[in-house]
């Protein structure tokens, strides 16, 4: 195929895409002359060019269409549902020929490549007799005059084939790029070459080498960003085909459905756009066929007869979320469970104790469909599992929410791009692993001497108390069957708090290496089957690291989504707020007395060797991070310890932010031992003169240092 033809095909397909959008809009706004003009132009352009290129069949069809559209434009015809259907068949006809030309180079001369029926139909719509007698050969006369229903059905079924075929065509292999972006890319490549030349000429020791390395870094970053930008496509391109799809589907299923969009301008990598096309189509089909009820059912339920499918795209924390929401009947949990048991996907006992959320996830299992009747459109038991598999293949996730009688929302979360993700590189069992930053919530370092105490156990399950919430912890090296390495005595372990698919857990790793932007490389199928790694990457030092699939790791370790737990905590938090409680750090200063500080004034707890504490003018001082901290020693601990002459003994010092008259500065508070952190209540009526106040912490009498207490209360109230 020559360049001219392929260019013509690409252009025509764009024109037809535009026409498709306009047509569905035209049905909603029949009086919009601009839309008719747009459609007319698309068909006219095709007709003009085909004549020039010598595609007679295409020209003939386009000519008939143009003729019809001309009448419409001149106001001789009114926009009816039949007319729109006819024009859509025209669109499909044109598309089918274009596909044929693209595949074979010719427009086809075989018997089935005959458009006379379609031409006759269009002519009939135009209110004239067929153009010529032979054009209607083989078509029943009554059918051409009335609306030939089968004809439309046939056209519709053809429509299902045509876009699928064209999907493989030039439209997806080519990409239109802004010339500016291309120029910028070229400039950057030039810059890259220049930097390389300079690097080759200088050597590692050269004075300007660090500068060159920096420049290389910035050029690479710019180039990457530009290339990504070029690959970004608005999601609207994908949404564009749905009005037609929904329209056709709604007719087949006897529904009344409107489609709404928002966030069409959200950019997404082209390859990702391709990857989610099928899952999204499936989700929309599901929404129309399964979700939205028949009009009379809707009216009975007190809803407008016309159902609504909303497509929404937006950015959320480094990924793009695409939602398909319908206002239909929702998914019945009982039906889902009954079906799952019937299909032997779960056991009856297991089903009985499932939470609502878990039950909903069952629809993603292979071989699951709740459609009462198998229809042409959906309900053959293949579907949601494919949707999930396709989305997960590109590193995304799918979740579903549903309320009986209110509707269902399917949410697909896909990364902005496949190629590069920010990640934290960790070491465990002597190997490097990359954890995607998107799943990383926080990092906790557990020092060696606290390691024993920090890990608590219920049966065999290990837990870590993170701000009074129990977090299940998973040892990465044990999970992967790696040999545990002996770490340094002084070295504790790191807890990476991860969250994926509603699961929150702590992953124990030996060491943290640098956070890096890693380039994701796919793994071979054998390694993908392990299910724990989503890819591999080459690190800055040239070594390979496997990228851990956070969700799959959670599943392997048996971590369950903890919706109920989260709710419980929220409840506790709400309760504390109501009682106007403050969190206190409780410690022992003087023997047998419990003393406390509001938790938010304590910045750190340090263990300092006694020898590091210095004295000046009778006051104890500590050099702490280049700052001189006055030490507050109410319990006379320092003297006590000095007396015992234990040189190597450690003093526990609380580093507190002290809001004194001269602004904010820190002091250190020497304590015997730290006891607990828990919420408590100030007892205002017992305010004493000694700079201390009383409070009830865990129903035990505790003294609170006043200046902190007052200050904290004030700030706390501000926050509240």
């Amino acid at each position, binding site marked *: 195929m020559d360049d001219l033809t392929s260019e013509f095909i690409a252009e025509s397909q764009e024109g037809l895409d535009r026409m498709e959008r306009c047509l569905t809009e035209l049905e909603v706004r029949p009086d919009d002359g601009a839309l008719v003009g747009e459609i007319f132009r698309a068909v006219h352009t095709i007709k003009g060019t085909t004549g020039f290129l010598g595609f007679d069949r295409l020209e003939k069809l386009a000519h008939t269409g143009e003729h019809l559209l001309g009448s419409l434009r001149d106001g001789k015809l009114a926009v009816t549902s039949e007319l729109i259907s006819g024009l859509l068949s025209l669109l499909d006809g044109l598309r089918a020929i274009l596909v044929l030309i693209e595949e074979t180079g010719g427009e086809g001369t075989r018997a089935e490549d005959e458009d006379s029926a379609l031409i006759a139909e269009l002519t009939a719509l135009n209110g004239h007799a067929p153009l010529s007698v032979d054009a209607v050969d083989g078509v029943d006369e009554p059918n051409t005059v009335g609306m030939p229903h089968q004809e439309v059905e046939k056209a519709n079924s053809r429509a299902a084939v045509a876009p699928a075929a064209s999907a493989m065509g030039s439209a997806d292999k080519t990409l239109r790029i802004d010339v500016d972006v291309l120029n910028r890319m070229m400039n950057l490549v030039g810059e890259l070459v220049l930097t390389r030349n300079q690097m080759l000429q200088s050597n590692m020791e050269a004075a300007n080498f660090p500068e060159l390395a920096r420049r290389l870094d910035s050029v690479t970053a710019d180039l990457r960003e530009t290339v990504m930008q070029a690959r970004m496509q608005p999601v609207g391109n994908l949404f564009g085909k749905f009005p037609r799809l929904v329209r056709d589907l709604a007719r087949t299923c006897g529904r009344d459905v409107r489609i709404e969009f928002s966030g069409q301008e959200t950019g997404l990598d082209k390859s990702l756009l391709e990857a989610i096309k099928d899952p999204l189509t499936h989700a929309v089909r599901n929404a129309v066929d399964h979700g939205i009820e028949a009009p009379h059912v809707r009216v009975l339920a007190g809803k407008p007869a016309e159902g609504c499918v909303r497509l929404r795209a937006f950015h959320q924390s480094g990924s793009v979320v695409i939602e398909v929401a319908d206002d239909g009947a929702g998914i019945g949990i009982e039906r889902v469970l009954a079906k799952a048991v019937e299909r032997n996907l779960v056991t009856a006992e297991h089903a009985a104790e499932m939470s609502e959320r878990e039950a909903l996830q069952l629809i993603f299992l292979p071989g699951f469909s709740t459609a009462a009747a198998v229809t042409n459109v959906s309900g053959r038991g293949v579907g949601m599992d494919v949707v999930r598999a396709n989305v997960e293949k590109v590193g995304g996730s799918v979740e579903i929410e549903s309320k009986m009688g209110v509707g269902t929302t399917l949410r697909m979360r896909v990364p902005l791009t496949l190629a590069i993700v920010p990640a934290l590189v960790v070491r465990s069992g002597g190997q490097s692993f990359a954890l995607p930053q998107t799943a990383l919530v926080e990092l906790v370092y557990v020092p060696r001497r606290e390691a024993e105490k920090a890990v608590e156990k219920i049966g065999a399950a290990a837990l870590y108390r993170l701000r009074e919430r129990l977090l299940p912890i998973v040892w990465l090296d044990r999970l992967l069957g*790696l*040999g545990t390495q002996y770490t340094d005595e002084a070295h504790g372990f790191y807890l990476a708090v991860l969250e994926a698919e509603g699961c929150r857990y702590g992953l124990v790793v030996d060491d943290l290496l640098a956070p890096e932007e890693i380039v994701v490389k796919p*793994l*071979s199928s054998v*390694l993908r089957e392990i299910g724990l790694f989503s890819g591999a990457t080459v690190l800055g030092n040239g070594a*390979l690291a496997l990228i851990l699939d956070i969700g799959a790791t959670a599943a392997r370790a048996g971590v369950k989504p903890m919706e109920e737990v989260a709710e419980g905590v929220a409840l506790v938090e709400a309760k504390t707020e109501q009682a106007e409680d403050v969190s206190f750090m409780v410690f022992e200063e003087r023997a047998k007395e419990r003393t406390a500080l509001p938790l938010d004034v304590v910045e750190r707890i340090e263990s300092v060797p006694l020898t590091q504490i210095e004295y000046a003018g009778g006051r104890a001082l500590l050099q702490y991070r280049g700052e001189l901290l006055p030490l507050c020693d109410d319990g006379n601990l320092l003297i006590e310890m000095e007396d015992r002459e234990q040189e190597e003994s450690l003093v526990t010092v609380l580093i507190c932010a002290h809001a004194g008259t001269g602004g904010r500065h820190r002091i250190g508070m020497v304590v015997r031992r730290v006891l607990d952190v828990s919420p408590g209540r100030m007892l205002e009526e017992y305010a004493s003169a000694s700079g201390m106040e009383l409070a009830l912490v865990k129903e035990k009498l505790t003294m609170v240092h006043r200046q902190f207490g007052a200050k904290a209360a004030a700030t706390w109230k501000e926050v509240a």
Partner: protein
Amino acid sequence: MKFSDRDEGDAAGALDEMQEESDAVSLCSLFAGSESFGIDTRKIREVLGKRELQRVPMAPAYIGGVVPYRGEVLTAVNFRALLDMEDNSAVSCVLVLEDDEGAERFGLAVDEVGGVVTVNRRMLEENPCTLEARGKWLFDGAYKMQTGLMVQLDPKRLRPSRLAETGLFKQCVTGATDASTDRR
């Protein structure tokens, strides 16, 4: 490996001294333990030499690990593991293989790679019937060399995905012991 019929076919080899050009095949010799093997050089894309493999936890035992190769991450098959030999901790030699369709590139980790030898295709001896199932899968006959037999390997059958399909090889043995020996 027992080649009970190693003396068979000597006479046949002596018969056609005059070999046709088209029958000549060049094999790259490689070694695992004390045995020598050969792979058609046309199917070898590159010999990477000694490389340290990045182990993949939970992978089937016959997967030696992954190795970076020209912007790709190649899965390397541990040939010693396929032969049920114990893993030697030394760094192994990695070859990059590609089958005819070029569908899947993968690495093969062996003890050592030797030189290229040219043999006559017609001199190939069939696998002995006494060979166990795994051997039958892996080996593609043998050539009689002066130093002993050189067993021919077919890269198509060494492909990680094919190995997984056959189910002849242990699926998931990368336990704690296996991995720790490697890392001492």
